[in-house]
Each structure stands twice: as structure tokens, then as C-alpha cells.
């Protein structure tokens, strides 16, 4: 018989990055008891990796900025299949959420007149990113963590959720295990908020930590929720490519925001070669204008390096494929050149991009103030996720809420840099608020003992399969396969190959063997993660197969153009009653007139 310890809360938040912490703070402020479960130690979530800043139209550096411009930038970046209501709420509420952080102790960089300073970033028309050097994510998570500890939130660190528990249609808690001793725990809750982040570990080259295994996506899917937009994966254009052991680690877009340029092996600034039509009138006509833009000249247009991430990633891909790449399979990102423009360039770079200077110096033994970096695309972010109500963040399953990267809708086909951190605080707050309301209106449900025994039995099986497969090998094979077949550029045949490959991997993952015992065992963890990784990989592949066009983060070599037919709906995947994954089209609701007008006005 398995021993279960039971914990009871009104609201349970799963995931303690920016969205989870913000949700927990909000729910707690509403006067309900809150439990916060995180897979790692508190304050270590992937949010710490966010460098550039959080987008909020405060207009401090350019008073032409306002929510309407932010809204239309977000919709254009998402290629108009975003949930417009989420994009609207996000653009309107982000400034207040940023100011709130200042009131909780965050120390943002300042403008000359003492206000929060804002920087340029890809896809944003005006300087809009509130930032702290290039460690904005750390500032965000630490501020929320420090504010949260005095709120009476119960934090459960190094606890991994295995399954959501349901009473009828409704989610009433979850079954989890704590890492130190592998003991199973039941968390009963009136409402559950998923804030588990992304899925980057499904790919070989990724900026994501071990935690990015699509847990929330898979938990929600298994509980009957819908996932939408799963074909849209953002490959951040600039990850490190050298040395091999650091491949994938992020190089912030802030480097380009501060004037960094991309060059191929012939020394050509190739981003000027291909500027998409819908961005032509907002892009600099020559390098000089681009430089002026990065230095805050309001009359200048942005350099092509600051076009959307999907576009920049594909341009880099093109240069590498054409044989014009850097020695280690990337291209050159040069910030050192600004010494031609600024007398104290080296100090300026160290001041503006301290973490990047540090990272290259220590990991690649390279001084970015004198030498160009080698960079290439890396799996960074999933636009797709749990389908939620725009205002309440409730999923299609009652009592189950989602926020942050594991929820979907705001970003459409492609996310603008800086919109992630603001997404976390805007929708983290909303999720916490509405989860608390749900908890006040509903009692605790009943937990079915049979569900618990089934989950724990399956979870423990890898220990008994002497001679079974090493879970690390299966994980690596999955990552290679997804990278090769459902990566930056996709074709019908490759995706079919991926779906077949997933069948094989699924069978293999049912035969994992883990040595040792249940105490803090990373092999066991890896074996259990496979279930989630396989679900999200299948969802990505199935949606990518259906979308026979190229849009945002999804590029089909066999359908390289955008097709207006595909702008009319989103794809959703859902678990059928027989356990198979089914895909549906969800028509996009027509935008109300006042938002249509905003788009028209803003061009």
C-alpha cells in the first residue's frame, strides 16, 4: 500500500516562475489559502533566464507609445491569429503590473528624469521594455519571491506533479511526489493554476533548463483540456553555438537592441537583404538609420536585426544553409563594432550587457567588446498551450486555470520579445484572481482512490524493469528526432516521419529501467518526464502537419507562403475518450469594431 500525505489548500499553483508566483500572490491577497508547488528550489525557474525586459507601453522614452500601439504590434507579430482579447488586456494592463513591481521593491534602470527606463526590442515600434541591464527575469522573480514570502503562501519545493485529480468534470487537486524521498503527496484544492512554462526540452538545441518538459501542457491534456497553437514554436535567433557544451544558451536580443549587427562569413550584413513587406515602412533604409534608432533617435526606423524572431531565425538558417555561416555553424553577432561610434564602447557594452559579457568571457573565453559572437537559432518558447478564457484564464476544464507560457492565445503565431515577462504578470494576476473566486464559490471535491493507485503504480514501474532502457537515451533520441523533423523548417514527409518516430519512442518509454531507489533520483525523473515530452511532441507534430502554410514560428518548406484561409481558425488538440489525440479547428472570433479601428489607425 502506498502512503499518501495529504495537503489541503483553496488554490494550488503548480509552477513558481513569474506567472505562478504572481498568481499565488494574487490569490493569497484575495484571502484564500494558497499552496505553491515547484519542481526546483524557489527562485530558480526559467524566468531567471529572461534577459531583455518586460514590454509595457508606459511611453517613458517615447510618448507616442500607448496600449493601442502595443496591441497592434502584438497582433502583427502574432500574424493576426492571436486571441485579440488577451492581446488587448495585456497591452492595457502591463504598465500597471510593472509599476506594481516597483512598489514591491524591483529596481528598474532609470531614465534621465528618474522614471523607469525602456529599451528597444524586436517587433516593438517604440522603446517599450522595462529592464534591469540584461537580467530582468531575475529581478522579476526575486521581487515576486520576496514579496510573496510575507503573504503566507505555503511553498512546496522540489515537488513534481504526476497527475491532476478530478471529481467528475472538475479538477480537485493533484498527485505529486517530493524529490528528496520520492514520497507521494496528495494536494487537495478547490482550484488549480498551472504555470509550468515551456516545452524546450523536446528539442536538442534549446535555451530551456531540465524543467521545460511541457508538464502543464501534458497534465492539462490528460485532464481533458484543449491545447491550441501547438505548431508555433519560437526559435530564438541567437543562441550560443560554440563551444558545443553551451550550444543553445541564449544571447539576449538586447545585444541587437543596443546596436549589435548580424553578419555572414563574407562580412555582409545580410538582414538588409530580405525585409518582409508588412515591415518595410518601419525598417531602417540603411545602417546609419538603424544605428540612430538603437541610440534613441525617434525619427529613425529600427534596423532589420530587430525584425520579429521567426524572420531573423530563418534568415540565419538561410545564410548557414547557403554556406555563408561562421566556422561553427552559426553567423556572427557583432556589438564590438560600436567602438567606431562611441569613444567608451567597451565600458558601455559592459554596463548595458553585463551578463552577456560575463557569459561569453567565462563560457566561451571570448570578449564581446572586441570580438564578434557566433550565434544560431535555439528552441526558446512555445506560443501554443492550454486554451484559456481570455479574462479569467480558466481552461476548458472547470477549476483548472493556466497562465504564462503553458497557456496560449496572446502570442498567436509568434511572440514578440519582452511580451513574455509582461504576459506572466498580467495573466498570472488574472489567473490567481479568478482561481480565488472559483475557490470561494466551490467546495473541495472528492478524490478517487483508484486514480491514485493507478498513477503511483505506473510511476514506480521503471524500478522493476531490470534490463530495460536508459531514460536518458530515449530523451536524447526524442530531442534529435524533433530537431530534425519538426524544427525551424518543416515538410509533410518529415512530420509524418516524426509521428512514426513518436510511436516507436512511446513504446520504448514504456520499457525504461531506473537503478537506485526513489530518493532524489534524476534518472527516475527523466523517465517520468518522457510521458509529458511525448504528448507535447505529438501535439506539435499533429498541428504542424495540418497547417499547410507558413506563418510566424511555423514554416513549411512545401507551403512557403501565408494562406489567408488559415487565418480563420486555430488548431486545438484534445484527448479523445479512447486516449487518441484528436485535432480540431476552432474558428477565430471576429474582432470588435473598436479593436479593428485600432489596427487600422496603427497601420
Amino acid at each position, binding site marked *: 500500500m502506498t502512503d499518501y500525505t495529504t495537503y489541503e489548500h483553496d488554490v494550488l499553483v503548480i509552477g513558481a516562475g513569474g506567472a505562478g508566483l504572481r498568481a499565488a500572490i494574487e490569490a493569497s491577497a484575495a484571502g484564500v489559502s494558497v499552496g505553491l508547488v515547484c519542481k*526546483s528550489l524557489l527562485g530558480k525557474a526559467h524566468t531567471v533566464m529572461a534577459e531583455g525586459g518586460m514590454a509595457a507601453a508606459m511611453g517613458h522614452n517615447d510618448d507616442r507609445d500607448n496600449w493601442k500601439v502595443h496591441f497592434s504590434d502584438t497582433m502583427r507579430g502574432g500574424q493576426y491569429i492571436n486571441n485579440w482579447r488577451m492581446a488587448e488586456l495585456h497591452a492595457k494592463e502591463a504598465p500597471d503590473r510593472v509599476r506594481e513591481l516597483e512598489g514591491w521593491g524591483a529596481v528598474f534602470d532609470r531614465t534621465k528624469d528618474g522614471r523607469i527606463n525602456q529599451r528597444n526590442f524586436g517587433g516593438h515600434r517604440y522603446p517599450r521594455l522595462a529592464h534591469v541591464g540584461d537580467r530582468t527575469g531575475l529581478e522579476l522573480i526575486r521581487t515576486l519571491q520576496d514579496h510573496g514570502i510575507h503573504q503566507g503562501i505555503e511553498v512546496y519545493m522540489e515537488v513534481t506533479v504526476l497527475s491532476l485529480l478530478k471529481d467528475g468534470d472538475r479538477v480537485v487537486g493533484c498527485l505529486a511526489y517530493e524529490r528528496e524521498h520520492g514520497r507521494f503527496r496528495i494536494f487537495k484544492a478547490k482550484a488549480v493554476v498551472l504555470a509550468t512554462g515551456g516545452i524546450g526540452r523536446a528539442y536538442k538545441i534549446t535555451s530551456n533548463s531540465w524543467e521545460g518538459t511541457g508538464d502543464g501542457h501534458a497534465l492539462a491534456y490528460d485532464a481533458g483540456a484543449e491545447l491550441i497553437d501547438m505548431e508555433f514554436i519560437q526559435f530564438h535567433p541567437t543562441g550560443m553555438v560554440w563551444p558545443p557544451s553551451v550550444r543553445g544558451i541564449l544571447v539576449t536580443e538586447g545585444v541587437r537592441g543596443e546596436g549589435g549587427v548580424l553578419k555572414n562569413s563574407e562580412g555582409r550584413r545580410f538582414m538588409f537583404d530580405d525585409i518582409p513587406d508588412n515591415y518595410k515602412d518601419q525598417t531602417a533604409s540603411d545602417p546609419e538609420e538603424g544605428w540612430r534608432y538603437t541610440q534613441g533617435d525617434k525619427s529613425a526606423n529600427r534596423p532589420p536585426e530587430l525584425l520579429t524572431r521567426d524572420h531573423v531565425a530563418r534568415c540565419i538558417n538561410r545564410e548557414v544553409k547557403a554556406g555563408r555561416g561562421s566556422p561553427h555553424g552559426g553567423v556572427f553577432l557583432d556589438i564590438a563594432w560600436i567602438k567606431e561610434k562611441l569613444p567608451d564602447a567597451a565600458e558601455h557594452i559592459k554596463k548595458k550587457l553585463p551578463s552577456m559579457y560575463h557569459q561569453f568571457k567565462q563560457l566561451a573565453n571570448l570578449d564581446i567588446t572586441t570580438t564578434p559572437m557566433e550565434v544560431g537559432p535555439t528552441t526558446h518558447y512555445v506560443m501554443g498551450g492550454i486554451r484559456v478564457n481570455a479574462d479569467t484564464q480558466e481552461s476548458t476544464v472547470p477549476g483548472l486555470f493556466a497562465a504564462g507560457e503553458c497557456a496560449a492565445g496572446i502570442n498567436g503565431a509568434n511572440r514578440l520579445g519582452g511580451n513574455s515577462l509582461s504576459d506572466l504578470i498580467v495573466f498570472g494576476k488574472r489567473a490567481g484572481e479568478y482561481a480565488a473566486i472559483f475557490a470561494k464559490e466551490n467546495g473541495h471535491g472528492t478524490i478517487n482512490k483508484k486514480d491514485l493507485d493507478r498513477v503511483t503504480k505506473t510511476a514506480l514501474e521503471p524500478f522493476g524493469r531490470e534490463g530495460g532502457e536508459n531514460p*536518458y537515451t530515449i530523451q536524447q533520441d526524442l530531442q534529435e528526432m524533433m530537431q530534425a523533423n519538426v524544427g525551424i523548417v518543416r515538410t509533410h514527409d518529415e512530420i509524418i516521419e516524426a509521428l512514426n518516430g513518436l510511436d516507436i519512442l512511446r513504446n520504448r518509454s514504456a520499457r525504461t529501467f*531506473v537503478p537506485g531507489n526513489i530518493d532524489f533520483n534524476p534518472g527516475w525523473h527523466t523517465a517520468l518526464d518522457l510521458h509529458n515530452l511525448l504528448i507535447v511532441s505529438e501535439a506539435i507534430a499533429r498541428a504542424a502537419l495540418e497547417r499547410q502554410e507558413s506563418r510566424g514560428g511555423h514554416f513549411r518548406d512545401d507551403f512557403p507562403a501565408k494562406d489567408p484561409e488559415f487565418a480563420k481558425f486555430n488548431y486545438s488538440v484534445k484527448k479523445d475518450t479512447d486516449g487518441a489525440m484528436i485535432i480540431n479547428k476552432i474558428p477565430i472570433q471576429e474582432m470588435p469594431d473598436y479593436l479593428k479601428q485600432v489596427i487600422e489607425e496603427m497601420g
Partner: protein
Amino acid sequence: MQKATFSIRRGGRETAEMVDYQTEVTEGMVVLDAVHQIQAESAPDLACRWNCKAGKCGSCSAEINGMPKLMCMTRLDTIPLDQPVTIEPMRAFPPVKDLIADVSWNYEVKKRIKKFTPRKPDAEDGTWRMLQEDIDRVQEFRKCIECFLCQDVCHVLRDHEKHQEFIGPRFLVYTAALEMHPLDTEDRTEDLKDLFGIGYCNITKCCTKVCPENITITDNAIIPLKERVVDEHYDPVMKLVKLFRKK
């Protein structure tokens, strides 16, 4: 390809031994890469913490050849590989398993520090004004990634185990960030003296040396806090008298 030997602490809270593992070493590898390789090849149940692998999260703190370091930021070409590289968990905290130390004490300490309490907003719209030069020093402290290497190396905690009486360098930096925050109105000097044991620090600067974020912990945070405590709680005239008597 070159092979190297890593001698890693294996075991739980009570007993442990050093176990040697051989693995292949390639260009640019860091210690954490070697640990991951060993996990995948020969020790799937080897416990270690890590998250970002870029020196930003502070999860993979360990003692490498006896020195407190982040495994992800320690390149193998910076340490001798002709002899086994020892990797052990931080010693100032109880061991949990293999390379994992129980750092929960740190999370409890933070709760005891009075929270950020801002002054009234400066502008009618509820916002504040601060100048960059006034926040530069606070921003330095806020670079802290909570790797707890400074706590690990601090002899007050490591050798004398004063965890009850002394909050350690990390939380002195944290307190300094609050005390020097231009908006904060709270006073923590009495707590520094009575509850947080700032007097235990005798400025050996070990914490500053191991900080992966290069925060000048001792000079910029601890010494100014000590000065505040002295200014507020000790009579400067009596202090002068004592000083002269010594001579």
C-alpha cells in the same frame, strides 16, 4: 579523445563515499557537463541540482577540488585533469544526497528580514522618481543569484555553525539592498546587531572571493552596514576612549 576522472560524493544524509567516474572530455566542457555525461552513461541516479546552465540561477553550487563554485561556470580547461577532479556538495549545509545540500535554512532566514516598505509615491499617478546613480549600488546587490556559495565559504557558518545567530553574507547583502533602497522606509539596524549577528563577520572577504556575480559583498554591503550599526548603537566618544586605552 581525452578521458578524465571525476571523484564524486555519493551517498545520503548519514553515510557517503567518494566514487570515481571516468568520462570523455571535449572542448569547452564545464564541470556540469561532465556530471550530466556521467549521469547519462553510468550513474543515472546521481543527484545534482541545475537549471539554467549559464550562471544565472545559482542551482548547481558545489565544491570543486575543495573550492565553492558553480558547476556550470567552471570550465574544465581551467582545472588540472591529470588527477581526479573532486566534486562535493556545499559543506555549510546538511547533505541530502550525492551533490545535493539541504539549503532550506536560507529560505527561513529571509522570512525574518523586515520586508521592503516604500515611501509614498512621488507623483500623483502613484509612481516614484529615482536617479540611476542612486540605485547603482542597490542594483549591484540585486544581481545575487542565491547560489549560497558565500554562505558556504563563510567560516562563521561553515566552521562555527552559527546558523542560529548569524544570517550570513547572502542575507547581509539582501539587507543592504533593502536598507540602501532609495524608496525603503524601514530600519533594520537593530535587527542587524541583535538578531542577525553582523558582529560575527570579521571581514575575511572569503564571500567576496567566491561570488560568481562579482558582488563586492564585504566592502559595499557588509562594511557600510557595520558602520550603520556602530553609528546608531555605540557611543562614538566611548569608542574613541577605548581605542586610546588600547595604545
